[in-house]
């Protein structure tokens, strides 16, 4: 009996002791957590305060540059406080200021834009952009290239040139756009060396960038023979957009290219650059091609064909494909009076074809 009582008493004290230990541990944990939260909140508040200050200083600096009235000679300095010069070493401030300068440069032209560039260089911000080009992260590289391009720092084109053939598509795109931004049509020389594909989207971007520049006769024919298919396609787009008639024969060779996309682009190109014999070349390749390319050839003939092509086109009026019939009828009708007359004489029991002929005549009359 006494033993049982002793056992129960000791058990009671042990559980009391355990409870005490648990409470102590939790209290310590709570205190630690509280201290951690206070430190975290302190640094967060400090960081937020700093960010607000950085934003304020950056805004003021950008505004000062935009509306700076002083004479802008290369040696002129926009007045900058010692504090700002010191703050440039701070990564957060530098990033904030750079972002604001880039944003302002994007939206502003004229003297103000020149002032923004001047301030950017005065604060040696391009030094940091060049350092970022060595980053192992592609997005940092791409951002740095975009920054140098927007600031129109042509003096760094040699540093950017290798990135035009970078393994990362977005880095490549930024570098290619930058080279065109610096040198216009001559910036396209990266096409000589590029081994990666130039995406459809990138081709559109480059053409759009070039459309704002006065046309320049650069040597495109070597790109038409490039081993990089995307370069050939882009070159064909250039030939078409800028009406490079002298490259007719070089484009003709692209009609025999192994890649069907190149052949299609070449066919489309002939809608803009052509000679009296272009249609003969297109027709001679007609039956070697698939439906998509055949339709493209007839579409091209609508623009460049003559009455000499009508015997061939008349055979297509009985084709099973509706589009083929329609395009052929259009090409015949547009080839001249004789073409229209031959279409008129083409009375047929094929109701679909009769409808097409009526439609085409209506289009011509309109």
């Amino acid at each position, binding site marked *: 009996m006494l033993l049982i009582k002793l056992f129960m008493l000791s058990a009671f004290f042990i559980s009391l002791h355990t409870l005490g230990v648990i409470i102590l541990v939790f209290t310590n944990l709570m205190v630690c957590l509280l201290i951690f939260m206070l430190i975290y909140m302190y640094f967060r508040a400090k960081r937020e305060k700093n960010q607000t200050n950085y934003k304020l200083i950056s805004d003021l600096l950008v*505004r000062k540059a935009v509306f700076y009235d002083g004479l802008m000679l290369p040696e002129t300095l926009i007045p900058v406080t010692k504090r700002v010069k010191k703050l440039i070493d701070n990564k957060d401030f530098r990033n904030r200021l750079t972002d604001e300068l880039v944003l*302002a440069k994007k*939206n502003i*032209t*004229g*003297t*103000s*834009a020149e002032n923004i560039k001047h301030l950017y260089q005065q604060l040696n911000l391009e030094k940091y952009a060049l350092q970022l080009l060595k980053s192992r992260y592609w997005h940092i590289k791409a951002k740095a290239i975009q920054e140098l391009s927007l600031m129109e720092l042509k003096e760094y084109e040699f540093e950017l040139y290798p990135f035009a053939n970078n393994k990362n598509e977005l880095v490549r795109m930024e570098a290619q756009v930058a080279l065109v931004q610096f040198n216009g049509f001559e910036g396209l020389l990266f096409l000589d060396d590029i081994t990666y594909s130039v995406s459809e989207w990138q081709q559109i971007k480059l053409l759009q960038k070039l459309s704002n520049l006065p046309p320049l006769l650069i040597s495109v024919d070597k790109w038409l023979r490039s081993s990089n298919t995307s370069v050939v396609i882009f070159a064909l787009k250039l030939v078409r957009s800028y009406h490079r008639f002298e490259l007719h024969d070089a484009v003709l060779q692209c009609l025999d290219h192994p890649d069907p996309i190149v052949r299609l682009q070449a066919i489309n190109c002939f809608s803009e650059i052509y000679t009296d014999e272009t249609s003969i070349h297109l027709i001679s390749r007609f039956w070697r091609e698939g439906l998509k390319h055949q339709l493209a050839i007839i579409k091209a003939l609508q623009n460049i064909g003559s009455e000499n092509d009508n015997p061939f086109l008349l055979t297509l009026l009985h084709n099973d494909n509706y589009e083929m019939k329609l395009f052929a009828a259009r090409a015949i009708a547009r080839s001249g009076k004789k073409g229209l007359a031959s279409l008129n004489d083409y009375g047929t029991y094929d109701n679909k074809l009769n409808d097409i002929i009526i439609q085409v005549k209506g289009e011509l009359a309109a």
Partner: protein
Amino acid sequence: MKILVAEDDELMLKMLEFRLRKDGHEVIVTHDGREALAKINELVPDLVITDIMMPFLSGLEIIGAVKKSYPNTMPVIIISGMGQESVVLEAFQLGADDYITKPFSPNELSVRVKRFDKAIIL
């Protein structure tokens, strides 16, 4: 001249405000289309400068509302981005009085605004 500026880009808004104040104008700044329309009806500015792409209400909707409520008395200048030609045409159809394309020179904006100032004085 009392000018209302509607622009969602904070930095651009500040720059426009600074330039116009420097030119001696009273400037009302708004950050989105809805705020702009409310301030137009409340403060009746002499000129509205608005970006096209803005939250809640676009610049085009602002032109429509201004030209309906204040025909011939409140000119509107629109700020458009590059490649927004079709939108600019639509803005003119709605009654916009002038436009300026980003990127633009603050001096150019200043001159365009002055044109409307003269018109009011005359």
